[in-house]
């Protein structure tokens, strides 16, 4: 009885908070499929999705490598300051993306410390590099945060065993360490991807939001909503594709991981 009502509360809460809004969006999309389709296939929307995927691919690649290196330093490192690194890596989770975007504008703006780029034609702000930087910033912690506990759990004995068997540091990493943390890395990559695709605040400030050029998919949704003039079908349609992409990534992860790989 107690367990049943607890389950009811949990499911009810999920429905109210998660399923409800998504279901509503799917419903609205279905109401005007033609309108949604026209918006989705609009060249500017296609360009927005292409930009989002490109930015996500770069941010995920960079942060996967950085996240694994960081986790190794935090768990295995022997250097002073790794406690500080451990604390700092969570900063993007605590900081509002708007502040991230704003500080990037301050730094790379023509009067900022790194203003040289902007002044000399290497556009960072209101261009792809700025969007990439903002996305890398907000998605920084995910891989490291997933990998750190797994690295702690596997310990160093397997790596030491590999060393006594003749494996170099590099061989030990590729053959022992990386396979041991692979599911943590996959999970971190999934979270990073989802966050990168969905990022809005930081990107909104640094991108310039030029349709067909520096407009990402989330910015395109915002635009479609702002300038709907009563026709919300485009906003719903593009939102639906974004949400479906995120859900697909989650499902893919569940399908890919072997049974019992994650407790």
């Amino acid at each position: 009885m107690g367990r049943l009502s607890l389950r009811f509360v949990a499911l009810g809460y999920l429905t109210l908070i998660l399923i409800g809004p998504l279901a509503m969006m799917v419903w609205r999309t279905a109401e005007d499929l033609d309108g949604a389709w026209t918006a989705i296939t609009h060249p500017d929307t296609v360009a927005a999705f292409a930009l989002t995927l490109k930015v996500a691919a770069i941010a995920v690649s960079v942060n996967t490598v950085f996240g694994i290196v960081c986790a190794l330093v935090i768990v295995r490192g022997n250097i002073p300051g790794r406690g500080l690194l451990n604390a700092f890596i969570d900063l993007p989770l605590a900081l509002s993306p708007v502040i991230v975007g704003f500080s990037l504008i301050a730094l790379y703006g023509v009067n900022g410390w790194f203003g040289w780029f902007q002044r000399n034609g290497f556009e960072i702000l209101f261009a792809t590099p700025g969007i990439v930087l903002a996305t890398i910033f907000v998605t920084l912690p995910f891989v490291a945060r997933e990998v750190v506990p797994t690295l702690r759990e596997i310990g160093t004995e397997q790596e030491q065993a590999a060393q006594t068997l003749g494996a170099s540091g590099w061989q030990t990493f590729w053959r022992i360490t990386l396979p041991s943390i692979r599911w943590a890395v996959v999970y971190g990559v999934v979270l990073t991807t989802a966050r990168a695709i969905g990022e809005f605040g930081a990107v909104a400030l640094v991108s310039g939001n030029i349709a067909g050029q520096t407009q990402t998919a989330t910015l395109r949704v915002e635009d479609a909503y702002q300038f709907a003039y009563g026709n919300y079908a485009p906003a719903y349609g593009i939102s639906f594709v974004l949400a479906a992409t995120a859900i697909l990534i989650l499902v893919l992860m569940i399908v890919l991981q072997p049974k019992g790989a994650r407790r």
Partner: protein
Amino acid sequence: MSISIRHITKRFDDFVALDDVSVDVGKGSLTALLGPSGSGKSTLLRIVAGLEAADHGAVFIDGQDVTARPPQKRGVGFVFQHYAAFKHMTVHDNIAFGLAIRKRPKAEIAERVNQLLRLVQLEGLAKRYPSQLSGGQRQRMGLARALAIDPAVLLLDEPFGALDARVRAELRDWLRRLHDETHTTTVIVTHDQEEAMEVADQVAVMSEGQIEQVGSPREVYEQPANAFVMTFVGQAHRLGDTFVRPHDLEVTLEPNGSTREVMIDRIVHFGFDVRLDLVGGDGERLSVQTTRDQAELLELVSGQIVYVRPMRATTFS
């Protein structure tokens, strides 16, 4: 290959783990480093393997100074207490690891792995993962993996410590037989004196980062160098300034000059052996190891007052 450990000192912050330790391990011997936890025995083994660096001193393997060499270049086989199995690899791939790293031809690897699987009695389990093996099987896989690279020396760090008593005894026998076949110079770290006595032909007793005595199992038991060895290797009671083994106490029913009066608290039967737990007048506890026949002959019962006398006692200056 012989191992020579010369004046090794190792500190962890303020704690002195090893204090000027020197030991020699003869070629083809099986040596046990025996001591309580914290005596530095595992640290010493890890220094021999290159998994830990000594602050001072040198390690020679087969006459060559390997002190500065990384573990990869020492040719040691190392077996860990908690197996250190490569969890994402099959038994076959675990054993083949060292050979794969050395880029040996596939056929050669397959042949060698099969041979080792037979040696450690894991035939038919090659495709399993470590999680599908029992503790004893995992440790045999660990041994096969270490032996695959034809190590100059085999180092075992409490290899049977995580196993239950029966499997431990089995593997101990098996290790001894394996050693008699392969004659690989072997060092085993253990805190279990019975294990050391049974398996090794040389025992180095360690305490607080120092070597207390090196000798054959019989020597360290019968001619202990000091009070620590006397009490750590086998049981011993302290009677005033002397030490006596439980089986060197004679029990009589009548007092006789040099005897002490004691009461039998408990009689414990182990088949042929019988242990008498005794309490002296001053509350001091003693135990005597005797035989079932002897106990029956004297018609001993608990609560009875008897007299004990050391037949052989050892004094350390």
